[in-house]
């Protein structure tokens, strides 16, 4: 190999590295753009979870809303996405390998997270549940960074973590005043949303780890479809009132239409944020951005268009968490490419 060949090789390696950094940037942009879709969907979900027929029994109403409205429409939308993109074959072709059990693992994590969010937003309100739920991205990033030995600790990371703490503190202190319940119920609601944050955080990491070996589209299908099976089996077997709530929800065309908005919004976020965002930019960057911003929009839409009691403090708290997350993940392109290699 001549010196010239080595120089050409080094130049190509550098170009390749920069291209990878650019791809990570693209993933981050998708993750950001997906966020309002989940805000629209889950803000609406949290605003109707306290209304009839979902307030017949708690937390059965929240469970029924997730199982019979959100997820069926989401699975339908993802099915359409697979058909249009021509990747539906991959959904079947991932089966029969040990790694495909990872689908079930992720689906259970996502299902528990969704259920906890719906139950918690009935107790503490969508605005507060949203602003705390955004921490899922940071949890996913910490797990991902630890397991993949990806270094995320820089001076700005500590600043970001501090901003997150301040944001959460502001949101909780402001949100507790206008929350639907007080006292012990409020505390239980906070506890449930923390469980949601942890399971979603793990799911966010698990998706990025899974897409390393599994085709992202097939993986996406099983993540949603298994949630549909699990949620409905449990609801109809274990919650007799749930069957009644499901019947009432499906006999009201307005609620079915609302379910479609929730399900489609959720599916758009899953496709753009979780799959394109995370598989391009990784759990650390894609995961943090898509989760933090999506949950900011849940809080923002809840307080504005969905008519929860407006609170400047919750908005300021949510903005502080977003700034915190940005400080954790934003870095120069060349640095980013080096980190990802």
């Amino acid at each position, binding site marked *: 190999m001549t010196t010239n060949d080595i120089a050409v090789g080094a130049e190509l390696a550098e170009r390749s590295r920069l291209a990878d950094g650019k791809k990570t940037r693209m993933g981050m942009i998708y993750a950001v753009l997906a966020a309002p879709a989940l805000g629209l969907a889950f803000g609406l979900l949290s605003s109707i979870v306290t209304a009839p027929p979902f307030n017949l029994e708690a937390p059965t109403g929240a469970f029924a809303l997730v199982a019979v409205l959100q997820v069926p429409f989401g699975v339908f939308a993802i099915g359409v996405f697979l058909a249009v993109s021509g990747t539906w074959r991959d959904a079947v072709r991932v089966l029969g390998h040990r790694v495909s059990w990872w689908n079930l693992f992720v689906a259970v994590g996502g299902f528990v997270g969704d259920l906890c969010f719906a139950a918690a937003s009935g107790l503490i309100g969508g605005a507060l549940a949203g602003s705390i739920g955004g921490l899922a991205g940071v949890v996913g990033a910490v797990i991902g960074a630890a397991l993949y030995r990806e270094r995320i600790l820089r001076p700005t990371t500590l600043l970001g973590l501090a901003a997150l703490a301040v944001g959460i503190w502001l949101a909780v202190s402001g949100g507790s005043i206008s929350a639907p319940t007080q006292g012990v119920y409020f505390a239980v609601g906070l506890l449930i949303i923390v469980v949601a944050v942890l399971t979603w955080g793990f799911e966010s990491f698990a998706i990025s780890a899974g*897409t390393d070996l599994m085709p992202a589209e*097939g993986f996406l299908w099983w993540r949603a479809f298994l949630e549909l099976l699990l949620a409905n089996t449990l609801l109809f077997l274990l919650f007799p009132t749930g069957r009644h709530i499901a019947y009432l929800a499906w006999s009201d065309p307005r609620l079915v239409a609302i379910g479609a908005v929730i399900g489609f919004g959720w599916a758009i976020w899953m496709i753009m944020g979780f799959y394109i965002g995370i598989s391009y930019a990784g759990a650390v960057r894609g995961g943090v951005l898509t989760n933090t911003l999506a949950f900011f929009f849940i809080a923002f839409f809840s307080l504005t268009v969905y008519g929860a009691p407006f609170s400047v403090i919750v908005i300021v708290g949510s903005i502080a968490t977003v700034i915190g997350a940005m400080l954790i993940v934003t870095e120069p392109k060349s640095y980013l490419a080096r980190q990802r*290699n």
Partner: protein
Amino acid sequence: MKPAPKYQAAMTLYHLGNRGIWEHRLFGVLRQHYRDSELSGLREDLIGMSTVGWLDTLEQREHRGQILRFYRLAESARPLIAYQLNLTTYLPSDLSTAGTLIESGMR
């Protein structure tokens, strides 16, 4: 049932072992079993697997403005592939066109 193209690619690299393969040659090998449209994500899949360190990129060349890479399954990733993927689903392929590192593959 055919395995997903990404799995077949990983298993082909597993069978090639130390020899490795140019990515366009791998594309050719997979075309024995899949239609072109099913392989459109292959380059992206290979880059993804090398980002997490499962593939070694031994050499890169430029061809009409595109970077082509010579991949080899990393030694550390062999047990992972053997454990996670069902190797009996591997579609037997004619690997005689796989090429070698010395022969550049496009001249």
